[in-house]
């Protein structure tokens, strides 16, 4: 077995420095389209989007992109006369609706600081296509290694602090998902990962599939992307424990009085 030990040592450290430093390797993120001013191209870009993620903004000649709906079809870039500007980052995780069961030691959508460096996560696949699940799995690989940040996967809801849901929630998975949530001790938080879990994606709502996790459970953190790259999911986990600031779920961020004062 010593050959494997040697191999491991020879490989050296591959782990990203995120969140301490930015990750610059190519291909870590598919990016997301940016909203804002698009002058005359507004109408054509709105029509190109198959999931209605792009809509005209309140300001004239501007667009708003709803990241919950973007499924990375690239129609607004490939073949568009005025391609959308592109955000190559990944820090997309945003707050979900307010969780009503605020338990002692917790702060609204966040797990309390006590959990900040030891969080156990249960993953429930509620109809996922395999991509989101595979990207969550990549968090365990040496490139991302989420253990270094105090995140651990657990197979049992009894040990879990965070319920990470992927998929649009199919009819058959609704009850298992609810049972998993109910079996978790409080305080608990729900992270919905991927466009399907946020809006139903291309699948829902339909006769067998819901329009996302929020129809079934209170969602605390939303991670958009189709699938979100591992770094985006990592950002979502860090947001859930209050170690990173959340982004806006739309681009550009809405200018609301409450949002600025909070």
């Amino acid at each position: 077995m010593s050959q494997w030990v040697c191999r491991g040592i020879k490989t050296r450290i591959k782990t990203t420095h995120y969140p301490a430093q930015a990750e610059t390797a190519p291909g870590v993120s598919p990016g997301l389209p940016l909203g804002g001013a698009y002058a005359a191209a507004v109408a054509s870009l709105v029509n190109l989007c198959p999931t209605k993620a792009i809509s005209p903004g309140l300001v004239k000649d501007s667009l708003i992109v709803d990241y919950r709906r973007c499924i990375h079809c690239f129609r607004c870039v490939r073949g568009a006369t005025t391609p959308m500007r592109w955000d190559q980052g990944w820090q997309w995780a945003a707050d979900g609706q307010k969780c009503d069961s605020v338990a002692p030691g917790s702060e609204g959508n966040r797990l309390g600081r006590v959990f900040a460096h030891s969080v156990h996560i249960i993953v429930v696949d509620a109809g996922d296509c395999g991509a989101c699940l595979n990207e969550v799995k990549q968090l365990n690989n040496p490139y991302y290694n989420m253990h270094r940040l105090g995140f651990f996967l657990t197979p049992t809801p009894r040990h879990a602090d965070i319920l990470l849901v992927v998929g649009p929630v199919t009819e058959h998975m609704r009850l298992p998902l609810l049972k998993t949530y109910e079996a978790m001790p409080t305080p608990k938080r729900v992270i919905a990962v991927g466009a399907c879990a946020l809006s139903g994606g291309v699948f829902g709502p339909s006769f067998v599939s819901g329009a996302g996790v929020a129809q079934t459970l209170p969602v605390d953190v939303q991670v958009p992307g189709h699938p979100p790259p591992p770094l985006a999911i990592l950002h979502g986990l860090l947001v859930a424990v209050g170690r990173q600031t959340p982004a806006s779920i739309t681009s550009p961020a809405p200018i609301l009085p409450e949002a600025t004062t909070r």
Partner: protein
Amino acid sequence: MNLSDLSQQMAQRWHDQVRVRTEPHGPCGEVECPAGLLPEIARWLFAELDYSFAGLIVEEDPAQWVLRYEFHRAREDVPVQVVVRRALAERTFPSISDCVHAADWHEREAEDMFGLIFEGHPRLGDFILHDDVWQEGVEPMRHKFQTSLAPPERRPNPHWSLRRIVQTPGAFAMPIGPVFSGLAESVHFQLETVGEDVIRCIPRLFYKYRGIEKIAEGRAPQDALLLAERFCATSAFAHALAFCQAMETIGGVEPPGRAKTLRVFLAELERLRHHVAAIEGICESTALAVAASQMALLQEELLRLSGALTGHRYLFGLLTPGGLKCDLEDDACQRAIAAAQDILRRLRQLEKMLQFSSSFLDRLEEVGVVGAKDARTHGLVGPVARASGVVRDVRKALPYCGYEAFNFDVPIEHEGDGYARLRILFAEAAQSASLMQQAGAALRPGPIHTPCPSRPGAALGWVEAPRGAAFCWLRISEAGQVARYRLMPPSFANWHGLHLATENFAFQDFPIILATFDLSVAENDR
């Protein structure tokens, strides 16, 4: 066998009861027969002529049921489509699953989705629509079923449970899933055991049923392509390619040479990534942590490579009927080839190291054995079938995208155990890297897209997905919308054969056998 030989032989046996003609949907022989003759003809094709069964397509015409049974063999043989028609009021068809066991689940699916009854089938009901969630009589694939947003009124049965089969003292059933083990896809297993060995393994699937075939109906082809690409992301490119090829057959267009070569290049990149991920799964299941991490590194590198090359780590949004949506730069392709070669070099090193890890080999050798005969009757496909000595690869049997011009082997093993399946994965990964290199060398400048008209018609599309042969049947209506989109993915075939490998092996081998079978739930559940 060519079409005239086929019609001659059929005429000798069944005289004028069978009508053979060149099928209007591509290069295929259409054999129309009365329902009574179906089992006989299916047996003749499958057992005597050694044809493979690809799948059953049920279509509801305004006046009649049309059932199409797809068969294919080798490159020199014409693929055969056996067609049976019956009035809508008649719902009973003969079952062929006693001779073509691969049709078993196809018939169960048709019963659940259309309410058809297959006479002689031993086990119908509770398949796609779970009996504890849906009541009987919901037939979602019928035209009259409305895909309304709210699910139809249901009376869930909380007391429903799986049927126990093993009835001996000391027997117990171990239910596993649908939420289990850190990162597993949602599926339920009922393992029945007496002590150490798994005696019966009954997977209960379709927890993730998203009704792709139904919700695709009425959509424009471009929007249905989004579904084809997204129902199973680990082989997204393959399924989208099958869809596009069906569209191109209907439209009567041929994509330009550069598009076809790039398709081969990307399809093989996806296969390479998939096989590396599958090998990682096997290392993980045997708790060989360093090997699993090393494979994970390679997988992430391939994902980043795909992301940097095409903009998406899972190759979404590249295909369109008639070609590709965006061109790739030759230089970028060459860099990707060099990176893939480097990954292959490291993969080979790891393969050598695994060959000398006895604790690892002990868990794989002579575990989860599937014999060649079983693999054939159950219609297994892909690396799993090839590890049991069944050569099936539609890149060779029904070449597409110009695969006939490339030089590659279809690796084959005969032991049929977990180690044979691992060796096949390694050998195929090497072939894929070589195909990428050949495709890169064959790239010529040129257009990447031919406009593909959306004509009414129907066609079969196929592709050798990473997990095996994937077929899809696409019908476009007069209005230019998708009227029927039937998916016959490889995981559907291989899940059906999982029990062959798991039964009569020790309980603790189950996760390892599952990993070597390399099954996707998303691909199966659609």
